[in-house]
């Protein structure tokens, strides 16, 4: 029978909690109703509410049940998909009595419903794939022991450095013999700029995508590592410019400036050029990103506050989307070469300029074009496990190419041409996904990478980013980052102390350095980075072993 009002009940479109990715477990008896959890929840997935509670008591000399009803306060999870619990766990963090915690619901139907308004689900973070990646399956199996002595990671000297820049082949070095000694004849040929850097770089995360204290903390950590620890770690600006004071400072040499299809921040950079006291470490031209191949950059309006608007030279509170492709791009031979030339020219050919692409089956085609361009300084390949501040879920989860085989085939292609030392390959996307930063980096180096780039790992390790591969948190796009990492809201980012971030950055790199030595020492490598030392690697899967050209072990 229909209700008298004539409104038809439609329970089919009322979701149950079982459809949600995280279900909030709340203990009535532990909760003291302080309200901290509901106020801290970034998506308002829990609300304070009142319930009528019936209790039955048997009292008196001749006990008999009697029921009473009273109104009690409670915490309730809402069933609105727009306010789904992201599992971030901030409620648990602030709860004084451990009365509340989100629990992952593996049977959720989240993706069936998260498309309201006819738009696909957008988010930030990483690919939601908690399985073990190829990188984490690789083992280091060539252990020096008796036929050649293992080195001592604590006592011997290790040189963990790599080169960024186009390296000339020995046959073409402009050198002549004068009195039995080799002398460089600079007039004979152009010698491309080459930087000696630490083989783990901090990848491109923009001012804008990151909050001011987060970006500042990373930058301070990098400067400290260089100036105090003597570790030449470099960091990429991401697309969105750099703080004007930094552009004019001596610390610019520790930064790679990125230019992407939106050219955000480049007005400021170009105006700062005459005032620069140092050259940047390199220029990265972003053509693609592993997390969202074929998709452009996106900084959503809610994150475009005053500082960001100023650095990028745009009005506040507008969506800033970089097109998926550079508008000037016509062909790789022409437009990419021109872009590399232009950037090189801007700094008097003193700065390495290299493109970054997303992992793809066509990476080798790009590589071969770059190999023929003597001004291309490197190729950065970002695999599918890379992260982003904002993208469609489908792009993040389903688009892209794993880094391991993509990198390996590119390296072997260079080997075939004898150019494996001329064009450094930078591998990114999933390095340290499960926390094994040094091991993943070493594995990629042995597969042929000259350097690796990290993003999500440093956000998690240096600022306790809450995200994981079960779609925990992953709301970087909303500007509501509960950790203050990817937000421009001062109320949120004041939670993050940039000094502590810098301290952690230093911790992370120093620890990785120790671990890299612990990997290289038993393999008898210390003098030079073991780039392409594939005989040191094995895997317990025949197909992977065959694909990567390494040995199978079991």
């Amino acid at each position, binding site marked *: 029978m229909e209700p008298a009002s004539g409104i038809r009940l439609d329970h089919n479109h009322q979701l149950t909690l079982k459809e949600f990715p995280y279900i909030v477990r709340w203990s009535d008896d532990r909760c003291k109703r302080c309200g901290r959890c509901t106020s801290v929840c970034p998506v308002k997935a829990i609300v304070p509410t009142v319930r009528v509670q019936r209790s039955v008591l048997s009292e008196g000399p001749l006990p008999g049940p009697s029921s009473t009803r009273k109104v009690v306060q409670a915490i309730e999870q809402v069933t609105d998909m727009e306010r789904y619990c992201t599992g971030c766990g901030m409620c648990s963090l602030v709860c004084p009595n451990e009365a509340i915690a989100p629990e992952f619901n593996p049977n959720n139907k989240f993706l069936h419903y998260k498309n309201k308004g006819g738009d696909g689900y957008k988010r930030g973070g990483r690919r939601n794939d908690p399985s073990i990646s190829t990188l984490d399956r690789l083992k280091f199996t*060539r252990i*020096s022991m008796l*036929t*050649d*002595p293992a*080195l001592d990671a604590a006592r*011997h*000297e290790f*040189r963990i450095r790599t*080169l960024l820049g186009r*390296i*000339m*082949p*020995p*046959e073409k*070095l402009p*050198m002549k*013999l004068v009195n*039995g*000694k*080799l*002398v*460089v004849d600079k007039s004979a040929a152009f*010698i491309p700029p*080459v930087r*000696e850097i630490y083989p783990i770089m901090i990848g491109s995360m923009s001012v804008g995508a990151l909050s001011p204290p987060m970006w500042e903390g990373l930058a301070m950590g990098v400067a400290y590592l260089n100036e105090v620890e003597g570790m030449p770690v470099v960091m990429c600006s991401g697309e969105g410019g750099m703080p004007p004071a930094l552009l004019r400072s001596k610390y610019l040499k520790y930064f790679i400036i990125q230019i992407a299809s939106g050219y955000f921040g480049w007005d400021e950079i170009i105006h700062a050029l005459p005032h620069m006291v140092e050259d940047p470490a390199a220029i990265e031209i972003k053509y693609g990103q592993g997390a969202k191949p074929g998709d452009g950059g996106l900084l959503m309006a809610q994150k475009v506050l005053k500082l960001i608007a100023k650095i990028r030279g745009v009005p506040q509170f507008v969506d800033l989307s970089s097109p998926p492709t550079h508008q000037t791009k016509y062909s790789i031979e022409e437009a990419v070469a021109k872009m590399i030339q232009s950037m090189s020219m801007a700094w008097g050919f003193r700065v390495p300029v290299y493109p970054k692409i997303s992992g793809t089956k066509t990476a080798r085609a790009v590589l071969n074009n770059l190999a023929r361009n003597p001004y291309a300084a490197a190729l950065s390949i970002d695999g599918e496990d890379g992260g982003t501040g904002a993208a469609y879920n489908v792009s993040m989860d389903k688009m892209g190419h794993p880094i391991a085989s993509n990198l390996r085939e590119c390296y072997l292609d260079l*080997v*075939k*041409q*004898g*150019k*494996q*030392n001329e064009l450094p390959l930078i591998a990114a996307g999933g390095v340290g996904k499960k926390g094994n930063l040094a091991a993943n980096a070493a594995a990629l180096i042995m597969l042929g990478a000259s350097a690796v780039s990290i993003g999500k790992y440093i956000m998690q390790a240096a600022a306790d980013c809450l995200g994981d591969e079960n779609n925990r948190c992953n709301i970087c796009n909303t500007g509501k980052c509960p950790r203050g990492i990817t937000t421009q809201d001062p109320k949120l980012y004041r939670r993050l102390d940039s000094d502590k971030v810098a301290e952690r950055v230093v911790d992370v790199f120093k620890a990785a350095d120790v671990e890299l030595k612990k990997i290289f020492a038993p*393999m*008898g*490598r*210390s*003098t*030079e980075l*073991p*780039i*392409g*030392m*594939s*005989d040191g690697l094995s895997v317990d899967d025949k197909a992977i072993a065959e694909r990567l050209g390494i040995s199978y072990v079991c």
Partner: protein
Amino acid sequence: MCRLAAMTSNEYFSPMENILALETMKEGHDGSGLGLVLKDLGGEFEELKNFPILSGICSGNSVNILDEFMQAQGFKLMHSWSPLIKQVAGINPRGHYFAKVYDYPVHFRRRSRQERETLLLNTRLALRELGEKDGSIFVFSFYPDVISLKEVGDPLQVGEFFGLDKDIIKAKIVLAQGRQNTNYAIYLYACHPFFLQGYCTMTNGENTAFVPIREFLLSREFPGYTGYNSDSEVFAHILHYTTRQLGYPLTYYKDVITPLKNTEMDNRDDKEALLLMKQSQRPLCIDGPNCVIGFTPDGTCFMLQDSKKLRPGVVGGAKGKYVLMSEECGVDRVVPHRDRSTDIFPMKYDMVIVKPQAEEVQVWNQLQG
């Protein structure tokens, strides 16, 4: 671990001297083989210095195949030498051990040295291909005034097996290595010393950077950069690459395989060149515990160490005769009455260079250049 015994002199001497030196170092090797390379030959080869000598082993059935092949290439046999094989327990003779001296094909006789070297290399590689599959032909070198002898067994016994104790063959430079590559299956092509177009090295220790170095050399598109049955073969090829192909003076070999740190280059006049070289030859940096002994076409001998000096090595003697050995007892065996205070133990930055005819010995220091 391999033991190495090299000797350079202004007089001809028997390789047995090297073998006896190896014998004194026997505690350090497992007596699993002997490799000899003789340069600047005396005796019956003294008058044939300009003609290439093909050294190797072939089975009885392959003698004709080899001869026919050489004939077809236009080489004319001038002289043939074979060791006087003496049956020794534990060594199985493989057929014919030979050193055949040829005259160049007619149309090559007036060609440049480089062209002739290319011909010799291509011929040796073709012979290797011809006989490697079934093990019927092994060729170790094909070059003027150089003989290579290799066999499995205890060095002293192999010496007797080849009849070297009978004093029949002499040279002014001899490199001897006393151990087959027993880290892997024993294979004659994996036995040091390795020789390529006048450049020769032997090494002890395992080269952990072998694979990237091999890939780099293979991709240089030089036909002689092949084989690599031993991780030590790359040392000879890097020497060939830096000095012959790139034209660097010998000392830069040390700078390529064990480059200085950037901060250590300040005292070098050629700092700029060093930095560029280090970058462009990064894959050639060795990374194992290695002592390398070798010679170049002009008869210069040298010894150098890895960048941590993880292997022993000593050079001793006097003008006219110097020995480069793994251990001091080897030096004592060959030149017992020398002035021991002049013995040189090269450290990580040193390269000991003995001039041709053992004229003088120099210690070149990498920090000073």
